[in-house]
């Protein structure tokens, strides 16, 4: 009697198996396939831009990277004579990014040190939020602010720098025109990269092993002594990685630079002088009125920018993730 009752309650016996159920097979297959979407997107971007821009690479050869001239003229016979070179734009992009790093990285490292080792807990929490907030500001806000508010100040600063340091070759100018210079664009970009460099550096500094910090203090180090002997060596690789992430951002920034830079297709080493080059901004500037051929050349320029930023970011991410791992 009692045994039949138990039999009724027990569920049907199932064979023990390690074979996944159909729902799991489907689930895992979908995830496996979808996880490659990022590869697909990256490959499609590189592939399409290279494919469309191939004509410009072929026609201009290596000069596409080195020549400074960019022109496309429709002649009397209706034929389009064009010569596309990005030399001025590439050097301009690198110059502006260098200025941005030169100003932005020291400020970011100091801010990160201040937040980690100096600021009281409450102030620190508030300021960390402000850093995140800065990162979420739209780039066009930096552009319009740079154009309206910062530009007059930067022109004044450029004049001051020129007055006292004008004897240094790259700080001289051929004629006194200081508006819309690479210097101004560099300052705007330096403000834009501060959040990312600061937050990466701060994360690394915060991981400094407490026992090493205490050991330094126990040996009689001052706060600065501790930072120099413990925190900076520990965080150096993370700071380098963060700076490279900032470089990646600085290379690809478009709208903010476009708003403040006078784009001219001539290589300009005088950073205070009123014109410069920038790949991303140049694409925006030329695209509206470009002919079919020129559009393809602009897509080729986009490909160059894509490859540059991708390489910088890949190296940067590797450096950062190594630094973070070694900290654990």
């Amino acid at each position: 009697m009692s045994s039949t009752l138990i039999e009724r309650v027990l569920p049907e016996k199932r064979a023990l198996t390690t074979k996944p159920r159909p729902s799991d097979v489907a689930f895992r297959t979908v995830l496996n396939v979808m996880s490659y979407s990022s590869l697909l997107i990256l490959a499609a971007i590189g592939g399409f831009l290279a494919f469309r821009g191939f004509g410009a690479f072929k026609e201009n050869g290596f000069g596409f990277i080195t020549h400074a001239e960019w022109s496309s003229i429709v002649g009397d016979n209706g034929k389009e004579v064009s010569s596309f070179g990005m030399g001025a734009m590439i050097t301009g992009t690198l110059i502006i990014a260098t200025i941005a790093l030169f100003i932005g990285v020291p400020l970011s490292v100091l801010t990160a040190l201040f937040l980690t080792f100096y600021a009281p807990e409450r102030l620190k929490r508030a300021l960390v939020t402000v850093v995140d907030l800065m990162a979420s500001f739209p780039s066009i806000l930096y552009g319009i602010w740079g154009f309206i508010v910062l530009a007059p100040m930067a022109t004044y600063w450029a004049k001051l720098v020129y007055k006292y340091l004008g004897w240094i070759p790259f700080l001289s100018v051929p004629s006194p025109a200081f508006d819309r210079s690479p210097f101004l664009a560099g300052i705007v970009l330096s403000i834009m990269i501060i959040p990312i460099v600061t937050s990466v550096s701060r994360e690394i500094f915060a991981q400094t092993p407490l026992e090493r910090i205490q050991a330094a203090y126990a040996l009689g180090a001052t706060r600065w002594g501790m930072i120099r002997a413990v925190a900076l060596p520990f965080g150096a690789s993370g700071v380098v990685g963060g700076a490279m992430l900032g470089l990646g951002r600085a290379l690809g920034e478009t709208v903010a630079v476009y708003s403040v830079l006078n784009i001219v297709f001539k290589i300009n080493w005088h950073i205070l002088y009123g014109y410069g080059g920038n790949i991303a901004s140049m694409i925006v500037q030329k695209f509206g009125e470009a002919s079919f051929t020129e559009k393809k050349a602009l897509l080729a320029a986009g490909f160059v920018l894509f490859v540059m930023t991708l390489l910088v970011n890949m190296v940067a991410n590797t450096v950062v993730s190594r630094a973070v791992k070694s900290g654990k």
Partner: protein
Amino acid sequence: MATTTVLPRKPWKATKADLFPVFGALALAAILDFVVVAVTPMKGKIAYVLLFFIFGAGFQMALKWRNLGKRAAIDSLAGSVAIAGATIAFTPVLSLLATTIVKGAKGLYPGFFFHDMSVANYQSPLNQGGVIQAIVGTLYLIILATLISLPLSVLTALYLTEIRGKASGFIQFLVQAMSGIPSVVAGIFIYSALLLTTSLRGSTIMAALALAILMIPTVTRTAQEVLLLVPQDLREAGLALGATQWKTVATIVVPAARNGLITAVILGVARIAGETAPLLFTLGVSNKINWNPFSGGQSALPYYVWSGLGDGTELGIDRAWSGILVLLMLVLTLFVVARVFGTRKVKIK
């Protein structure tokens, strides 16, 4: 018997006697600062700031040197430099916010939120026209870009946290690489792939595709972080009760991480809401509301600002500031909402 409560003492805390010379030195530096600027030919804000720093840091150093010696003086200088660096780094935020509010408020009137630009152009007086078409366009873009990017991002994040297959490291690397794609490249990619050689024209869906590319890495990384916060015990408990992995993920892991996933989407939206560059290639133009996302041009808040800035006239730039104020309010709202959700990333009922 009277009981006495012994309060904990903090002998390391600075006493009034310690703090007096510090603030005294700062006050002295401020006075000297004004005097020097008034007397010498050095003028302007830079002179005030720079001299105040030199005097302030110098006095502090001298004090420390006298009381504690050379190393304490160097330590004090390093502290001053760190404070100065942080101050310089945070000053632009104040200026950005203050300028946007002051300049943006000028062009705001109730109709700004209800009128479109078909009744006015950028040179019209500021009490004509508005941004309703741009607000609708931006909302459309946000919804479409989220619909496109959310499945891809969450599935990739689930792959990275639940399956942890052989390719995990590689996929992680690619997602990080994707987060570095310049926004202009996303725009010209969609243009080159879908618009250059076809009869298609710029429309909301095209711009949403470009924005989705920028949104995917942000959402994936945040989603991955919150999924990792779901305790491993929950997964094991699900499997031990006989649920399949699919059931465990769908009924336990994802619901547990729900708030965090919402945060991930909001952060992604905040990332793309203000993007301008991709729109220039993919959005087309419209000065009134376009309810059809698949054909015809569209407007958007960043594009409205861009056009105002490009217009270059005083009224155009005033409109741009008002547009950026509306955009900034949107981004700040998203930011605050993400914070509120983000403080409780994983909620277990």
